């Protein structure tokens, strides 16, 4: 399969008045087209920092990050970023929220707008198009946030703990929806999470990061059927085995 994203010996040093910190060291991995990769690691190891580097928002101190063979330099627009909170703008309607990326990237035209509205319709949010975000439930808002992310047709989705602000029940169902949407739209995704079961339930591959400085400790190819939904995976007997394996390895990493 074609590799869409590659990190090659990436390192990052943080500077602050009191000193410098090696946040990321010698990190290499790649993501194939259509793949769903989850990154887990000890808390504070810099998982989000890695995403920010991939998105070109932080420049790595060493190494190269390439998207489609081109080195990422700035947020040139091939990424869709989904954050912990939906970050919908309260003064914009849902319709105006999902077309925000088109405005920012100056690609707002009939075709792209129709694509975004089509997504709203496809995923059951059409009747809320003219509502304001605070009229929607948390789960619906997060789905709108995903559609906003998809509106500019990104090559790569970066998901930074996108479900962690939701309550457990909603988290499972939104995770289910997001997984389905990402599969149906055939998007490549990198998910950062601290929730092992979430990682196992959505990812094709899980990357375990070491504690600071962050590097790739281990990779696991999760051998579920690609189209098995997160909830179905949770019911699968192998789910437990994966969970326990990752749990143990993550604990070892925490104790280092």
């Amino acid at each position, binding site marked *: 399969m074609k590799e869409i994203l590659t990190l090659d010996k990436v390192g990052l040093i943080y500077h602050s008045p009191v000193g410098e910190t090696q946040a990321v060291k010698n990190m290499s991995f790649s993501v194939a087209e259509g793949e769903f990769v989850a990154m887990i690691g000890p808390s504070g190891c810099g998982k989000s920092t890695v995403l920010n580097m991939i998105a070109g928002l932080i420049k790595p101190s060493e190494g190269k990050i390439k998207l489609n063979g081109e080195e990422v330099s700035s947020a040139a627009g091939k990424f869709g970023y989904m954050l912990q909170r939906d970050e919908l*703008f309260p*003064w914009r309607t849902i319709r105006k929220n999902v077309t925000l990326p088109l405005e920012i990237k100056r690609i707002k035209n009939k075709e792209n707008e129709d694509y975004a509205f089509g997504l709203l319709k496809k995923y059951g949010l059409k009747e809320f198009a003219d509502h304001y975000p605070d009229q929607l439930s948390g789960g619906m808002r997060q789905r709108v946030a995903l559609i906003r992310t998809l509106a500019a047709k990104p090559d790569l989705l970066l998901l930074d703990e996108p479900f962690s602000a939701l309550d457990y029940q909603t988290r499972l169902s939104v995770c289910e929806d997001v997984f389905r949407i990402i599969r149906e739209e055939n998007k490549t995704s990198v998910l950062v999470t601290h929730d092992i079961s979430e990682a196992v339930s959505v990812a094709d591959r899980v990357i375990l990061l070491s504690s600071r400085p962050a590097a790739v400790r281990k990779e696991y190819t999760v051998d579920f059927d690609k189209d098995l939904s997160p909830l179905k995976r949770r019911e699968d007997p192998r789910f437990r085995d994966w969970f326990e394996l990752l749990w143990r390895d993550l604990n070892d990493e925490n104790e280092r």
Partner: protein
Amino acid sequence: MKTKDEFSREHLLYLKRRRNDKIFVNCARVALIIIFLALWELFYRLGAIDGFIFSAPSKIFKSLVNLTKTGELFKHAGITLFETVAGFAIATSIGTLVALALWWNDRLRRILDPYVVVLNSLPKIALGPVIIIWFGSGTKSIVVMTILITVIVTTITMLSGFTATDKNKIFLLKSLGAKKPQILTKLVIPSSLPTFISMLKINIGLSWIGSIMGEYLVSRAGLGYLIVYGGQVFKLDLVYAATLTLCLLATGMYALVSLIEKITVGKKQTS
């Protein structure tokens, strides 16, 4: 939700209690001012208070009627209103623009920070003599005084509004490739709208302080002038008449901003 004709007896009682409560509050409000004015007038008529020093509602009313007849009231009120509105508009614009510049350029903000602090704590009235020498003893000086009193607070309020913009939303825009002008127009300005409205409300009060204080210092016309003049010649009814007009004008201006708030901010920006 149930419609009106399905309401339970209990709910109807609840609605009635609510309505009665509202009526009581409104009546009490009106009664309070009527009783106050009536007692004032009564004590004056009975000779319990000296009308020369304390004036009386009837005297104030007569004075207001006289001032209206001669057209003096409109002249003075008009002058003060002009000074206030001009100072308000100029100070609000300058203050907001300066705040924008300081938001845009963080280094500039850090350089100017101590100056802003000093200017903010300085009692602007202390600059009165300098202003008079520079701008003469007329409307110009008063407008300048109004601007000075209002502009720093505007800058500080708006800057804190701009910098309080949600960091995560800025991050989101940056991840979409947004540059500073887009962050400003798509996010910072719309999200600062509530701050802007509350700043307008503060500024109304400050502008009136500025214009009246300016008129106390230098003027030959205006409501502030009427008040000072009335005090000097012991025409207390004139002082009260001018103060009352001032109250009405200030309240009117405040109501206008509240209306603007309702239209622009509306319901949608509750979160």
